[in-house]
């Protein structure tokens, strides 16, 4: 793992002058991930916040080669570039080495881009797919995605009198990617950036396609103070809603076990999108959410070989 001091000697790939919101956590994710690459890089982005803020013609925040195609097809697009690379190498027409990273938000990854992602991973293109998961379609005005947490208020799941926010739990995309038998799969958070950095380096060195799902708060969508973007990305981990783990060759490994597992409320409170959950009439929802998180956490511990006797039950 490269130290921050060493990294600071590198030139940023995702450079200043992009037009992300002040305090944007996904922008930090883009910066840190591309800094870790440290090689010739082709980055691709699905349509979304990070794409629109970084490549407004005639400006580009990308110092590496960069391609945007559409919302749902960044994995297929990078498949094509990677195939072009392989053929050029094979024919001796290119001497430089390249790495490939496809970036997508949760909308472009969990939802509309899932088919393209699954196809590219199954075909085994040598690329890292990195999802910056901010739990909603933030670029289009904060609508629900299948990554939006239970209870959250979004533009399409408002905290109504009859239906208070989103009624479904998050899709577990990381698990879906584990089922693709990839060389490397990991869950990370921008709140734990040293862990993220380590994982990106690992993923880029993996012999085959890799996938990292990074919790990257959107302060506008989560309705928090921009300066707290990292704090809430971290609290997601500390409450075990978003555990940090990695799966190499099918073997689960917990990256970090919180010293003290915080109650979910610690993450929920202060986020405007969950305000309504603290009303007395929604107490059941809070309880249900906490139970869900506990169960998933126990199951993960069991998968990572850290489960207690009783958690073995949970794993079944």
């Amino acid at each position, binding site marked *: 793992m490269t130290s921050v001091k060493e990294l600071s000697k590198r030139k940023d790939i995702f450079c200043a002058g992009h037009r992300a919101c002040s305090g944007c956590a996904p922008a930090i994710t883009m910066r840190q991930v591309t800094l870790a690459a440290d090689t*010739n890089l*082709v980055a*691709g982005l699905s349509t979304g916040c990070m*794409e*629109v803020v970084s*490549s*407004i*013609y*005639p400006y*580009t925040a*990308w*110092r*590496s*080669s*960069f*391609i*945007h*195609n*559409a919302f*749902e*097809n960044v*994995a*297929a*697009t*990078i*498949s*094509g*570039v*990677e*195939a*072009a*690379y*392989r*053929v*050029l190498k*094979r*024919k001796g027409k*290119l001497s*430089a080495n*390249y790495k490939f990273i496809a970036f997508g938000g949760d909308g472009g990854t969990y939802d509309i881009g899932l*088919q*393209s992602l*699954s*196809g*590219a991973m*199954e*075909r085994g293109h040598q690329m890292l797919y990195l999802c910056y998961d901010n739990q909603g379609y933030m670029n289009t005005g904060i609508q629900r995605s299948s990554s939006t947490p239970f209870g959250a208020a979004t533009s399409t799941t408002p905290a109504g009198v009859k239906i208070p926010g989103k009624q479904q739990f998050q899709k577990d995309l990381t698990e879906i990617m584990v089922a693709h038998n990839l060389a490397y799969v990991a869950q990370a958070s921008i709140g734990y950036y040293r862990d993220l950095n380590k994982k990106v380096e690992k993923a880029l060195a993996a012999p085959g396609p890799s996938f990292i799902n990074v919790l990257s708060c959107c302060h506008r969508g989560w309705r928090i103070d921009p300066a707290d973007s990292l704090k809430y990305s971290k609290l997601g981990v500390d409450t075990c809603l978003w555990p940090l783990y990695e799966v190499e060759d099918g073997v689960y490994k917990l990256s970090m076990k919180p010293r003290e597992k915080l109650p979910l409320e610690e993450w929920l409170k202060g986020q405007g999108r969950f305000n309504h959950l603290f009303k007395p009439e929604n107490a059941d929802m809070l309880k249900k959410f906490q139970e869900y998180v506990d169960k998933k956490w126990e199951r993960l511990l069991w998968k990572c070989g850290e489960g207690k006797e009783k958690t073995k039950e949970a794993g079944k």
Partner: protein
Amino acid sequence: MAKRLSTKRLALTGNEAVAEAFKQVNPDVAAVFPITPQTELMHKFAEYVNDGKVDTELIAVESEHSAMSAAVGAAAGGVRAITATSANGLALMWEILYIAAGMRLPIVMALVNRSLGGPLNIHCDHGDAMGARDAGWIHIYSENTQEAYDNTLQAFRIAEHREVMLPTMITLDGFIISHTTEVLEILDDETAKSFVGEYKPLTSLLNPDQPVTMGSLALPDYYFEHKRQLVEGMYNAPRVIEQVAKEYYELTGRQYGFLENYRMEDAEAAIVVMGSAAGTTKEVVDSLRDRGVKAGMIKLRVFRPFPHEQLANALSHLNSVAVLDRCISYGAQGGPVFGEVRSAMYGKTIPVHSYIYGLGGRDLTPHMVESAYNDLFEGKSDPRMRYLGLRE
């Protein structure tokens, strides 16, 4: 007569003919997904890949949307990229067709024409290509297996020309051409290769000396200018299409242009048609001529860019014209080709009639074509679309 190089005379289907041309071109990346009636084209090409006859990277994607997306990625990576599809496959690509053109990537695609449904139908009509007529692609139609092969080779030269830089689709009628074994004369591999030439990309993501951003977001301050540039590519295309056809003629003796004028010199009435129906129409013209009827035909080879001026000149001496469309534009005055032809004829007083034929693979027989000529020569006038081979 142009000099004729050594050629090989084969018996191949339209799909095999295009695969043969692709084999000779030996593209760098092929993104493929099956759909009837295109499927056999890529089967054949996959055989070439797996038998080591080409050194193409074959990406067997999970949808046509990803096929076009991967082709965009590959072309952006600075290599020659191809794909092929039909009907619903093209419809699924639709979004990315515009992006490929907007990014000025010279992807070559074989489109085996098939109806779009519903109801579901796997047979030929031109509704698929017509849906994509404004996507910024060059569209070249083929009458038979030979033309499908010839057009494929020429497509690379046209698409990749520096002043054009537009993706190009060559079309062949589903089943009628794609699955019909016919005589095919092919160039020897070396001649074909040198005709098409080495690919040199204008821009590449894989140039370590110059990282580039492709697919940027253009706001109202620049989007319009980028679209105007694309129009310029289309404006430049005719010159290039003609130049490429001329060189191809010198190699093969086979003549290509925007139009094929068949017995038009002293014709009094003519049919304008595209694709395989042109052959059947020629037979009808001959039999009418045997009876002293001055019939002519114009086969339209290139639909985009549309040769308005050439067509208007070719039709200017006639008494009447019928346009046969293998596609309906619902709610319009006629089929899409009709609309273009009538627009080209603006200011002239020659009546132009719209006929729709062959939807969903309905056979176009010589009798049907003859009935359209009879209408023209009898001076029957009907401002509405008419149909050939439709049961009332």
